[in-house]
């Protein structure tokens, strides 16, 4: 589904990604871990198409298409979803109105008619239950005044509504308490199927306990230095990133 080949990327002239290779197939869950500054968020931004990040080398194919040629909105409409680490507030735009616009833009892109109000409400109700999101959040301006946990739940709710092929969770677990984490993880798990893939970017084991990744990749200084299974994550939890840095003689 996703094929990242030798990606080099920089921001403000500074090289962050120095040759990333990654293959993600439908039905798989990949975890990307690494210390701060290793390039995890940069990778997420590059995939989503943030214009500040310049791809200097390499290619990215998503569903057989060269996504570096696509605008961020087209990537989204093709089925790429990024659950932001810090979801932004948009005063005056209700959560419902925002999601309805997003859903219908995607449908338009795929040549489908927009959802009428009744069908849309039905879809909302169904997904609200799935993600355990409170109804009151939906009439409010999107993310405005939401707690950290509510913002993250809202990201997962949008994921449920948009039904993306590839979801990138960018440190979705940061700032969540035990209960919120459980609900968010449970929501993500309910949305898994053999046609979809998930990339989880995280520091911690906690979320991975719930999500049980198929593959774990460790990012260090802009390169994936180690690949493994969920056991690798457990090892990292136990030993910290130092053991990897030592293995690769990378100065701390």
């Amino acid at each position, binding site marked *: 589904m996703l094929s990242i080949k030798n990606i080099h990327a920089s921001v403000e002239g500074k090289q962050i990604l120095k040759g990333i290779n990654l293959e993600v197939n439908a039905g798989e869950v990949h975890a990307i871990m690494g210390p701060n500054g290793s390039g995890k968020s940069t990778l997420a931004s590059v995939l989503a198409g943030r214009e500040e990040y310049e791809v200097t080398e390499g290619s990215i194919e998503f569903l057989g298409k060269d996504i570096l040629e696509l605008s*961020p*909105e087209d990537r989204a409409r093709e089925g790429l979803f990024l659950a932001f680490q810090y979801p*932004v507030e*948009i005063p*005056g735009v209700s959560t419902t109105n*925002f999601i309805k*616009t*997003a859903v219908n833009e*995607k449908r338009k892109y795929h040549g489908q008619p927009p959802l009428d109000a009744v069908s849309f409400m039905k879809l909302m109700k169904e997904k609200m239950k799935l993600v355990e999101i409170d109804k009151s959040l939906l009439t409010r301006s999107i993310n405005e005044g939401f707690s950290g946990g509510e913002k993250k739940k809202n990201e997962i709710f949008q994921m449920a509504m*948009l039904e993306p092929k590839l979801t990138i969770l960018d440190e979705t677990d940061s700032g969540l308490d035990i209960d919120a984490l459980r609900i968010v993880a449970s929501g993500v798990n309910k949305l898994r199927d053999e046609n979809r893939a998930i990339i989880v970017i995280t520091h911690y084991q906690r979320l991975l306990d719930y999500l049980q990744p198929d593959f774990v990749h460790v990012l260090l200084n802009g390169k994936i230095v180690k690949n493994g299974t969920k056991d690798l994550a457990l090892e990292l939890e136990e030993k910290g990133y130092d053991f990897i840095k030592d293995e690769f003689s990378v100065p701390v």
Partner: protein
Amino acid sequence: MKEELDVLERTVASEYKYGFVTEIETDVVGKGLNEDTIRLISAKKNEPEWMLEWRLKAYHHWLKMEEPKWPNVKYPPINYQDIIYYAAPKKKKSINGLEEVDPELLKTFDKLGISLNEQKRLTGVAVDVVVDSVSVATSFKKQLADVGIIFCSISEAIQNHPELVKKYIGSVVPMTDNYFTALNSAVFTDGSFCYIPKGVRCPMELSTYFRINTENSGQFERTLIIAEEESYVSYLEGCTAPKRDENQLHAAVVELFAHRKAEIKYSTVQNWFPGDENGQGGIYNFVTKRGICMGDYSKISWSQVETGSAITWKYPSVILKGDNSIGEFYSVALTNHFQQADTGTKMTHLGKNTRSRIVSKGISAGKSQNSYRGLVKVGKNAENARNYSQCDSLLLGDKCGAHTFPYIESKNKTAVIEHEATTSKIGEDQLFYCRQRGIDTEAAVALIVTGFAKEVMNQLPMEFAVEAQKLLAVSLEGSVG
């Protein structure tokens, strides 16, 4: 961020789709303004002597006055002798219906989406159509007359209801009020007249559509709305003009009277040609609008969506004379390219227990300048006056400006006056969030701006709220930063 700006600036600028000219036979009085011009206008309209005298009095005042220089807008000096003061489509207005209206005009209004066809009762809106200096059609007059409502052009009202016009004209906005009201009082050509009798709730929206067509003409409309005790009327004004290289002047006067327990709701969706993206051409919209809540428990509410004009200079105001009277002002003023706006309101509290509410949303884009100027005045006998003002500015890009000039003058210590103001930009993060959800930049800006203007848009009559929303989106094309 820079790339995003470039992409947006390269986006096709909005086409002002009302910019076409209608080729019809027009009766035109030569350029220039002197006593003869005024006599000619009055004669063409078959006005009674007292009206001509009134006009001439205003003209002589105007000659002694000087154009005000205090607004936050810049424009080259206007040559008042280089303007045509009277232009009218030749085909006469019919009393019977639309059959006699010049077919070119009917086509024009079809193009503008204005329904003159009474068959289209779905919207249930009565329309008076003014092209250049005359009203060309008024629909539903008979149905309204059946309940005692007078809705006609002001020229007709001067002929058929002189006592009413004489009683009220110039009493809310005296001819000497300012330079442009003096000019308007001398050369006003047409506008709407509405009279709602005691206890009557007007069964449909009344509206006037103003269209400037003739080159080098100015439009000086005069509207007068009178609501007798316990009556209600909701009125809408819409306006467009063709694209031209020269600026054209629109100096209107609107007077509203609300008697005891009456309510007048006046909405405007203004889309005069704003000038092209280099600031060439466009209408100068210098307007004086004022309402007086004469009777106790009366209410006047102004709602406006201003997206057009090269320069907008207007302060729809309310004088709260009656006890327990209410004044409201809701405005969305959008400026793009090189437009300038200095707009706001004046709420004068004179009676006891009066309330006013001001919600002003300014949206600036391109290289435009948008100023809000508001005055809340509380007289010394105005016990328990309450005012709430909220003035929000949204800046799109870094070359535009938003300014706020709030004035408060209170002579009574029981007054409670609240003022809130915010200034914001559409953040790059907000735009990216939308894009990552499949919403492209233009749609995202429209979404955010609509949310920003929601409180004001909700005040517009439903039929027009949708159009106004579309107008906002179209006016913003290619403007984000």
